[in-house]
């Protein structure tokens, strides 16, 4: 777990993000500061009093389901929408009244929005000409950009003579050509097929590192966000649910919603019955008493959920001798294997507990022969350590 990351506090998460990096040095003021920004469309609040700081050189991802307001937020940064309230500060200057064409920010559009009547070269040069750059300088810059995105030889083509991947590169080159302070990417890889998407993710990361530019990417694909971004902001209904590193987002989700949205999770509802030595005991209806490591003080009777990722739930053959052997196996849930899904790298078992609830366990297939597999109908014990459970307030 990364050391400088703050502790997650669900209650304060929406307002406290501005202080999310309290240990950062004083000169490291955020490049982009979003302060209490709202945007309404009619009576619908697309973005709801949202605050966020983004530092220079970050690769930041806005992740959320469709309609959560992430694209509206991005369009406000580009200047295509004006916030109804709040401020957007870029390098300390409020850019809310600045029109899109005067902002030192560029955007890569989801459908690329390449000008169909212009060649690749003219598309890339478009923004440079508007900036009044000298012809020779434009040629040099376009050349650099073409080399950067590996489009050599295609300069004279029109957009409709390009493949999807090539169009994506032209769009990228065009938005990078003006060397914006911040590059906004709206679902940059959504139109590419899976294989191409994966290689392009790596290229984008490599490019961002090399240019040291600030990237803000909007995506609905959590794997994409996890792979590329240094930090991820998870959005729902116009609000930021959590801002964290990919690892924290997965291992320490701030809410039930985040835990369910990012990855797969088992959730048990219950209430706190005791708290001792940083260990909470939670009485759940489905899984009996569960012990979870937790340093927060929580009053007895507090309604909570316990979240456990499937790969942290291990299975054992039912047997009196074996479970005594592992002192970590504090939480033991007995049940019957109800379903087995072989996924290649791993196998997911659905275990029906004696209470009727279902627990999913994902086991890596570390050997070729299925010596450790379990069959449907077999009685097993699903167990996990106190450190693997996360307590979420309800």
């Amino acid at each position, binding site marked *: 777990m990364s050391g400088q990351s703050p502790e997650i506090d669900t209650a304060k998460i929406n307002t406290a993000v501005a202080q999310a990096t309290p240990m950062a040095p004083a000169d490291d003021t955020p490049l982009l500061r979003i302060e209490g920004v709202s945007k309404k469309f009619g009576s619908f609040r697309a973005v709801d009093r949202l605050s966020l700081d983004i530092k220079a050189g970050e690769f930041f991802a806005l992740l959320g389901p469709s309609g959560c307001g992430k694209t509206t937020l991005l369009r406000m940064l*580009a*200047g*295509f929408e004006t916030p109804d309230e709040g401020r957007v500060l870029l390098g300390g200057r409020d850019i809310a009244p600045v*029109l*899109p*064409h005067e902002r030192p*920010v*560029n*955007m890569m*559009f*989801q*459908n690329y*929005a*390449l*000008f*169909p*009547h212009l060649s690749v070269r003219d598309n890339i040069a*478009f*923004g440079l000409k*508007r*900036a009044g750059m000298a012809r020779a300088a434009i040629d040099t810059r376009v050349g650099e950009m073409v080399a950067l995105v590996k489009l050599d030889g295609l300069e004279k083509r*029109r*957009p*409709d*003579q390009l493949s999807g991947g090539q169009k994506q590169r032209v769009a990228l080159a*065009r*938005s990078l050509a*003006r060397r914006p302070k911040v590059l906004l990417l709206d679902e940059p890889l959504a139109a590419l097929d899976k294989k191409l998407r994966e290689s392009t993710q790596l290229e984008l990361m490599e490019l961002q590192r090399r240019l040291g530019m600030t990237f803000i990417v909007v995506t609905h694909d959590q794997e994409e966000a996890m792979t590329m971004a240094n930090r991820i902001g998870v959005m729902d209904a116009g609000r930021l649910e959590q801002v964290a590193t990919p690892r924290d987002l997965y291992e320490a989700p701030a809410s039930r919603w985040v835990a369910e949205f990012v990855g797969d999770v088992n959730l048990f509802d219950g209430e706190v019955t005791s708290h001792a030595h940083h260990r909470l005991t939670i009485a759940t209806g489905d899984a009996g008493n569960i012990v979870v490591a937790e340093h927060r003080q929580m009053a007895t009777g507090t309604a909570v959920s316990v979240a456990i990722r499937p790969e942290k739930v291990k299975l054992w053959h039912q047997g009196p001798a074996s479970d005594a052997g592992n002192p970590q196996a504090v939480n033991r849930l007995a049940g019957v294997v109800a379903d087995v899904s072989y996924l290649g790298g791993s196998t997911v078992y659905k275990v029906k507990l004696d209470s009727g609830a279902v627990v999913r366990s994902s086991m890596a297939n570390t050997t070729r022969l299925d010596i450790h597999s379990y069959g449907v109908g077999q009685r097993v014990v699903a167990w996990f350590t106190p450190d693997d459970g996360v307590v979420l307030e309800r």
Partner: protein
Amino acid sequence: MARRIGRISPFNITALALGLAFLYLPIVILVIYSFNASRLVTVWGGWSLRWYHEFFNDRAMLDAAWMSLRVAAVSATIATLLGTLAAVGLVRGERFRGRTLFSGMLYAPLVMPEVISGLSLLLLFVALNAERGFWTVTIAHTTLTMCFVTVVVQSRLASLDRSLEEAAMDLGCDPVQAFVRVTLPLILPAIAAGWMLAFTLSLDDVVIASFTTGPGSATLPIRIYSEVRLGVKPEINAICTMVIALIAVLIVIASLASKLSSSQGETAAPL
């Protein structure tokens, strides 16, 4: 491609072929007879250009043709300008006061009987005490044809991806620059199609021109019309063939232009 049940049946092909024959045969026959050497319109007397000679020696017809071409060119140009502006206002102007009236005024002439449009404009010109002739016909044709231009340009503009304009602004264009550098080149085929439609509509009109023109400035259709009422004349065949040829040339130019611009993504609408 998946095989589709009953996609092409003999019935479909026959319907289509008969329909097209019905549309084209009369025109083909007319063109052929314009080269007939015989004075009798229905007796084939061999190939000849005699009726074309006749036309080029017919002072009154030539004047009318020249008048029609001028009216068509001027009115189509003004109509294209105004119609494009109107389309921009309707598609990009969002909601504004008087928008419903505006679109109503632009759509009504499309289906309005020409006798009404012609009569109402004449009454205006009389009330204004305007001398009737070239300009009154040109204004009348502009009023009618700009509505067609608006419809053609409007549909192209509405189908244009708005993120293209946003991309232009993102890359440093103010709204007017974004329109000139990105939007305008992309709707140019539609604007050209609109001009040609306006030109041919003007070249075709009898009714409105009859109302709005003055003595001594008849247009070609007015002259053709009065000749036709008296019966078929071989010279009219020749004139009609030349008008068809002119329009055919325009259509070829238009389709070439839209071929050229088809590398701009969407193919331009033929209308």
